[in-house]
């Protein structure tokens, strides 16, 4: 089912006693389409979760309107909304004996009878979904005893059996190890691209956002929400600007931040022959130590040059071979010994 979610002039925030309320974000305008994976990306405290929860109907907006298709959110009954949007939240459950199956089962509640009795089709759907997400074997396990990654997949399965065109996830990859993070992001991409769902997720992890989002919604307190393709937003400098913090410098080439203070420790230039995993990781190590790395094809006349050849790192100083070592640790040791506080290379 093709559908569009439209946000018009939305102001999010809390109404906490005071009549005016605390404004978090103003004049948000954005569109979410089925078949897209949208990442709401921004630093902590930007109001990402509040936006997500406002769109999901948990918080009333301070002003503005949200449309599911042609229907304004505030005219939709909870019953109707439960068939349009499902959620994965960061909230934790306290119940002891809740099994993974119990959790997923609740995704069918909008469809089953008053007493919650599951029909055969419901059971088939639950089993298929859990198997597809790789949590089929965890059905009888207590939700509490699952790992963070397993829990997240169970929660996604719960949202999927709810069978809604929109899926809203609050920080689904926070606190999850890197392989688990990639697994979950691959699942979410597939939901958007293969099943045609509109997936909206918040994350403060730039790498995840830049790598997987079809559309980024950049957020920062006091700045308007910006939407666009991640690559364009990096090149236009938007990502750098929205995450900007003093002392940090956004590396457009790598799409990540680096501390400016590193340059104060500039130990000099090291030339590295480009290409290969070894060169890439050698560069990583040298930059961490405070060297500036320049890619070079052949041994330069002056300065330190390292190339990886036939299983070992070969070192040169002013074009003179200085021996070869097996490990990057040994390369670092040697170069730092030469430097010994003074400038190496040029």
């Amino acid at each position, binding site marked *: 089912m093709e559908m569009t979610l439209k946000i018009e002039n939305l102001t999010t925030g809390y109404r906490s006693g005071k009549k005016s309320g605390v404004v978090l974000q103003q004049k948000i305008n954005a569109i979410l389409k089925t078949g897209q994976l949208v990442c709401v990306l921004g630093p902590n405290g930007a109001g990402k979760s509040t936006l997500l929860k406002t769109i999901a109907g948990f918080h009333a907006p301070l002003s503005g309107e949200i449309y599911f298709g042609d229907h304004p959110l505030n005219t939709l009954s909870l019953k109707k909304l439960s068939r349009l949007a499902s959620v994965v939240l960061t909230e934790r459950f306290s119940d002891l004996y809740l099994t993974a199956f119990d959790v997923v089962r609740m995704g069918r509640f909008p469809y089953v009878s008053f007493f*919650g009795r599951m029909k055969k089709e419901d059971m088939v759907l639950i089993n298929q979904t859990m198997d597809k997400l790789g949590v089929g074997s965890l059905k009888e396990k207590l939700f509490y005893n699952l790992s963070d990654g397993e829990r997240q997949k169970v929660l996604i399965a719960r949202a999927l059996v709810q069978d809604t065109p929109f899926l809203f996830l609050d920080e689904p990859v926070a606190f999850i190890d890197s392989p688990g993070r990639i697994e979950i992001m691959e699942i979410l991409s597939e939901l958007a691209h293969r099943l045609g769902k509109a997936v909206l997720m918040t994350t403060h992890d730039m790498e995840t956002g830049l790598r997987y989002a079809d559309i980024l919604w950049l957020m920062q307190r006091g700045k308007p929400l910006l939407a666009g393709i991640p690559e364009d937003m990096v090149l236009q400098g938007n990502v750098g600007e929205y995450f900007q913090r003093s002392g940090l410098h956004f590396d457009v080439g790598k799409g990540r931040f680096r501390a400016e203070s590193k340059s104060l420790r500039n130990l000099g230039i090291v030339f590295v022959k480009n290409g290969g995993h070894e060169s890439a990781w050698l560069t990583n190590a040298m930059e961490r130590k405070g060297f500036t790395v320049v890619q070079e094809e052949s041994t330069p006349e002056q300065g330190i040059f390292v190339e990886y050849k036939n299983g070992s790192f070969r070192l040169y100083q002013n074009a003179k071979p200085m021996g070869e070592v097996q490990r990057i640790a040994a390369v670092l040791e040697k170069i730092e010994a030469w430097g010994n506080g003074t400038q190496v290379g040029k």
Partner: protein
Amino acid sequence: MHSTFRNNLWFLLLGLLGLLLFVANLGIGSVMLPWTEVLKALFHTTHADTTALVIVNQYRMPQAITALATGILLSMSGLVLQTLFRNPLAGPSVLGISSGASLGVAVVLLSGSVAGVDLSSLAVVGNLTVVLAALAGALLVLGIILFVSARVANVITVLIIGIMLGYAVSAVVSVLQFFSGSEDLHAYVLWGLGSFSKATVQQSFLLLFTAFAGVAILFFYVKPLNALLLGEDYARSIGFRPMRIQRVLIFVTGILVAVGTAFTGPIAFLGLAVPHLARGLFKTSQQGVLLPATILTGASLALFCNLLAKLPGYDISLPINAVTSLVGAPVIIWVIMKSRHVKWG
């Protein structure tokens, strides 16, 4: 599910246990009656002994029914409140309703002597007056709780206000106690120890009717209660209105606890311990299983406690509140120790 068979077996066992304990409550008491006499009296056969008829039908029967009904009322209220507040230590006492009942009783039993008249010596305060006073006090507190819950957005706030209200009400009771005569005080303390034997035959049936009505209502809330296990936001996202469910269930359990406490006095620990016992036996959090499990376990445990309180073989009996505490507290410790491999939220 393969656990259905196991569950049904437990239901059957608990049902039989409850039946057995009910019969034992009729047969055992301070007066030794042969079982044949008990059965004859129970079925009103023509050869029944008149003493046995009176003891079994006028004393033991209402007491057993009161224990059964109160066990059901308090236990299922405890389960619902634990689910509602998502707190394993919630129970019928957290809303301050039993404290409210105590206040009502304290006012009628103690305020006389505060004013200089020893009411209990005048014998104007009968059983029914105490019941009505307890009910009035409990409903007053429930009214305040509902008034508050309609104005705050967070159910945990309601919980805290309930507990604080309980403390405040108890303080008022303490003041009344301080100024009252020793006979009135004795009457009040006795009420506070709880008893399944104060209710008349009619009152015991009223309790039983209330319990059944409560069971019938709460079975309609199994699905919303399940949904609330995931928290309010998830419950909303699958089409429920958490606030409305919370208010209705606070009202329903409040009435159940108020009625129970009015006829028996405050009964400690049953409402808190039984849901844990049921969870430990059935190892599930599905409210559709836990509700009947709690009802059966609660009925059995209350009947068991009443039997213990009668001290079979002795002339005297113990206050029921002491027995339920002595039985209930270890149950909670046992359940928590048993599930220590499971992390608590």
